[in-house]
């Protein structure tokens, strides 16, 4: 019994080891390592970790969302545009409102996929254009801002590394854990694993899919809000959203989520973001052209999926 659980955790353990290795390498290169540096790490990974988690939820459910970066950029632009110069209470209210919008955008995406029966990839490719267009419409050029108190609450200030740590971990505890335990959570794994069986087990496939895209959207929204808190600005660029989307897929996959659906969790993707952050940072600090980090990240993603696939296939052989 324990061995089965251990086997399933082995991926996360591997990720933690790699992240620890890279982390200590990076720390050893720094003149000092204190809470300021810890916060620098956390701010570097926060948006992409949250986005990877959102993507992970959707991939576990058997889908993929190529508009998740655009969802985050949209919320970033909304927040930066409307929260600038607002009082703390108004800003908090707006944050909640924008998170609701992100849930709505996600749900709508799920609804379109369910109703149209078009492949997720296609639907989300198309919606990514629409969402980026909306973001550009709301915030035509970079700018805007956020109430500073709120921003510091989310992303910390100077050496305060606890706020970003909480922003990272809180969604895991408040959203993911209850979800995983709930019937919707099982249904999410079920539709990702085998839609037909899930249907026969009494799962409402469409409704579950809509919920997953909504929760994925929520994570994208939190990521967008975090981005606003970190940068105090909204950036309506398609290139940002594309890169973020690709990183979110890489993060989810490195984090042990199987692209075929039905397998994985959210801790892995959060940790994988750490790896994705350390690789370019370490290279940069060695004065190596950071373009190499792209090569390494790409190759690493391929390698990890390859090995993961081989391991899983071996497990399945009779």
């Amino acid at each position, binding site marked *: 019994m324990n061995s089965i659980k251990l086997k399933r955790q082995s991926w996360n353990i591997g990720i933690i080891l790699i992240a620890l290795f890279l982390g200590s390498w990076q720390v050893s290169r720094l003149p000092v390592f204190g809470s300021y540096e810890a916060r620098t790490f956390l701010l570097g990974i926060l948006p992409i970790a949250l986005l990877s988690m959102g993507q992970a939820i959707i991939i576990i459910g058997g889908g993929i969302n190529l508009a998740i970066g655009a969802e985050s950029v949209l919320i970033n632009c909304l927040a930066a545009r409307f929260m600038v110069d607002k009082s703390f209470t108004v800003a908090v209210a707006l944050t909640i409102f924008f998170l609701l919008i992100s849930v709505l955008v996600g749900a709508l995406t799920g609804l379109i996929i369910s109703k149209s029966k078009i492949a997720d990839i296609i639907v989300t490719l198309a919606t990514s254009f629409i969402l980026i267009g909306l973001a550009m419409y709301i915030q035509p050029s970079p700018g805007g801002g956020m109430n500073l108190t709120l921003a510091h609450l989310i992303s910390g200030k100077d050496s305060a590394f606890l706020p970003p740590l909480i922003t990272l971990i809180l969604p895991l505890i408040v959203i993911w854990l209850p979800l995983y335990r709930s019937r919707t959570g099982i249904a999410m794994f079920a539709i990702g694993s085998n839609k037909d069986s899930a249907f026969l087990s009494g799962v409402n496939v469409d409704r579950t899919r809509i919920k997953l895209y909504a929760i994925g959207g929520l994570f994208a929204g939190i990521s967008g809000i975090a981005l606003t808190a970190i940068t105090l600005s909204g950036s309506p660029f398609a290139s940002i959203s594309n890169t973020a989307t690709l990183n979110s897929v890489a993060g989810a996959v490195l984090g042990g989520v199987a692209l075929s659906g039905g397998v994985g969790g959210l801790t892995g993707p959060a940790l994988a973001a750490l790896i994705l952050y350390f690789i370019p940072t370490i290279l940069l600090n060695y004065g190596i052209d950071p373009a190499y980090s792209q090569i390494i990240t790409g190759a690493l993603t391929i390698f990890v999926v390859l090995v993961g*696939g081989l391991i899983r296939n071996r497990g399945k052989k009779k």
Partner: protein
Amino acid sequence: MSTIKTFVGTRLTKSMLSLWAILIVLFVITGLVDHYFFTVPSIGVTFQLAVPLGLLAAGQTICMLTGGIDLSIAMIATGAAFIVSIKSPSGLGMALLYAFLFCVLIGTINGLAVGLLGMNPLIMTLGMNAVLIGVFTVGITTFLKGSSTMPDIIIKLSTATIIDPLSWPLVLWLLIGSAVLFLLTKSGLGRLIYAVGDNATAARLAGVRVWKVQLAAYILCSLFGGLAGLMIGGQSGAVSMSLADSLVLPSVAAVVIGGTSIMGGIGGYTGSIMGTLILTVLSYLLATLNSSEAVKQMIYGSIVLALAWTYSKLTEKS
């Protein structure tokens, strides 16, 4: 002949008609918005500009029919253009040879990884894309330094008109298009491409070496990508990192709008040609509209979504 009937079939004819209807409607709207559009040279140019997308879509159709997808096609196109640009001083022949060797190399890696190692095509080609971006970003300041323009011959071949609206690129497309249609409908490899996409296990049990088919598909896709890259370089006169970036998503969209399933096994190049023409006229229409970039993005996304949706509903019923 009964074979032709098998491939065209009542289902396809019906949807082909609707694709024609959409194209004509878009064409008329564009002409009404921009009177210049209806002149013969303008139609010629529109066709010409459709060719690179049409070539990319050819590669994408082949990959998607096997149940795959090639998202590294943009960097393959860019790479081919870079290589021709840097190698052209040592003769066009050599330059082309190097470029196509590069395409075959990348196609082989993609194909072997997908076919023999069972890699997920989405991740494999996304990873490959990241690796290639890294390689060329490094290369642009080192081994590719100075590659920014295309040889005159290629510029001529990708832009010169024979008699309006017939141009060299169009002639090339007609030739290649016929070859692709022949490949898919009248050759053994074509049959296998469909077979592998529909049910790879069945194909293997029937004695087919599935990986060879996938390898062939990815190499062909790469070659079409490279050719498209040269043509884009020729049409713009300049080579840059983001040469074909903006065509990746449309290449997938064109294939899907044209009725090829992203799961493989069903569809064909005729539909992709229609999809290509529709998207090309659509982007011309958007370029003529004097609306902001934001609104254009939203319209583009919405229309692609609407087209894919309409098409899937149309084919579902019959």
